[in-house]
Each structure stands twice: as C-alpha cells, then as structure tokens.
C-alpha cells in the first residue's frame, strides 16, 4: 500500500502558516474593528483548521469519500446551529408571545 508522501518542507510550511495565523489572530484582537473582530477571528480559525485538515490530515490527497465524511460533521453542526438559532433569533417576532 502507498499513501501520498509529502515533502518535509511542505509540513514545515504549513506549520509556519499556522504560527502566522495564530499571531495574526492575537494581533487582530488588539485592533478595534467592531463586529468585524469576530468575523476576522473566525475566518482565521477556519483557515487554520482547513490547513490542518487538508495537509496534516492528508485530505488533500484522499478519496472523495473522505472529503464527504470530513464535511458531513461540519454540515450537521451547521444544521444544529442554524435551526437552533432560528429559534433564539426570532423570539419575540410575534407580539404577545414568549420574550
């Protein structure tokens, strides 16, 4: 059997990108961007996670099935967040009811 073998330099490169991302998040937290602070924070975090998944976890070179399985967990998480938040964000839309 033979999986994809990536060069060492690539792993070090990804590691460096992750370090930069971490520093960037901390620095971005120091700058007042209003609501954009959260957006920047999450964007950086998602990018870092994507780098880990694609390269450290080899999804970049994996079968389509692995892509689907890896994505399904996040997709179901979004279902949970989305349908729960549509309750919390719409409390009080209809007058005279809860909150």
């Amino acid at each position, binding site marked *: 059997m033979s999986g994809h073998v990536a060069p060492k330099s690539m792993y070090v490169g990804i590691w460096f990108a992750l370090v930069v991302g971490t520093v960037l998040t*901390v620095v971005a937290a120091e*700058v007042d961007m209003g609501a954009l602070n959260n957006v920047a924070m999450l964007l950086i975090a998602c990018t870092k996670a994507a780098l880990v998944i694609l390269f450290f*976890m080899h999804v970049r070179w994996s079968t389509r099935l692995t892509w689907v399985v890896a994505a399904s*967990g996040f997709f179901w998480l979004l279902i949970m967040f989305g349908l729960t938040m549509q309750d919390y964000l719409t409390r009080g839309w209809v007058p005279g009811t809860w909150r």
Partner: protein
Amino acid sequence: MRSALSEQQFPQYPAPVAIQPAPAPEHAHHPWLQHHFDNMEQQAEASTLGMWVFLSTEILFFGGLFMAYLVYRHASPEGFQEASHELNRFWGTTNTLVLICSSLTMALAVRAAQTGQSRKTQVGWLLGTMVFGVGFLGIKAIEYYDKFVHHHVPGPYFHWEGMYPKPAEQFYSLYFAMTGLHALHMIIGLGIMAVIAVMAWRGIFDEEYYTPVEVAGLYWHFVDIVWIFLFPLLYLIGGHFKG
C-alpha cells in the same frame, strides 16, 4: 418446512451469486493483515475511514458545547467579553503555539513511518509530540490553578468583581466544560501516542504498514483543530483594545 411455499411451486432462477473457487493466495500474507480483510490496502482504507467517521462524531460531541456557547454569548455578549478578559492571553497564545508544534511533529512522525525511516526517527517524532502534549497540559494546569485561586471556578465559591457576575459564571462553566473536555482528549491522545511509540520502537511500521500511526495522527490533529477554535472564542472575545 412448513411454509406454504415450496421450491417446486416456484421455479428457481439463477441465484444472485456465483460462488467461485477461492483465488490462489498471491503472495505471503503480511503479518499484520487481519483475517477478515482481503489485503493491506482494504485494511488501511477501512481503518482511516473508521477514524474519519469517528471524528465526525467528535465534531458533534464538541458541537453541543459550541451550541451552548453560541446561545449564551448571544444572550449576554458584554458579560462574556468581561469574563473573557480575565483569562490569561499569554498562556492561551503560548498553548496554541505548543499545540501547533505538536501537530507538526505528529505529521512528521506519520511521514517517518510512511517512508520507512528508522525506528529511532519514528519514536523521536512521537516522543516530541508527547512532550508538546504534556507541555500543553502543564500550562493548562497553571491556568486552572490560577482560576481556582481567584475563585473563578463556578459553584458556591464563585466570586466575580465585575458588572456581570451571572454571565461570567456561565462563561466559566462553559470554559471549564470545553477546555476540560479538550484536555481529556489530550490525555487520551497521550495514551494513544505512548502505545504507538512502543509499537514503533518494536519496528512494526514501514512503508507497507503504518496505519496505526496515521490513524492516531488524525485523532491528534483533530484535537488540535478543536483548540484552534476554542482559543479565539474563549480568550479573545471582543478584542482587548479596551484595556
């Protein structure tokens, strides 16, 4: 047979299978091939797929906590921000970097096994991963101790000086639940690493067979990813520019 149906009444058409003579074994079986798999490739694919399926379970396991975080932060953003500022940002950042380093050594450990490097190299990278992992837990312990001393642990002894004591207690409940569950995963990961390191030391892994290292690596990287999200969500809420 008591059934009203019998095979005479209903003509039988070709059965859905052709049972064929067993193919002659191509070559000697790999010693680590389990009996119910056809070949090493099938075994490796099954193992990695199994770990990925498990990780999608883990996403939703942590997901319940993230859901609670989202709802309560939405309910009291100011309280969460105030509580978040009491966390030690230096240790949080350091720990993020420590974990990223451990992910690198882990990836290199997998690569070392994959390319059939010497067992010393394999064990070296694995031990490096474990050292970073223990370092992470050590720093976490320092932080927990600090929270304990300052009465920031939720419960009857919780004490808060700021304007939002209740959301702060909620924040710290979530903080301990999330980082505690994460730390538990780290501890389990360290146990797995120890087993894998022993296996590597025995010289089991080579280009032909390195699935256990790879699967353990997937788990380790996943735990890293959880922290990648926990760090900004817990330590960096609302920015620190207000002092």
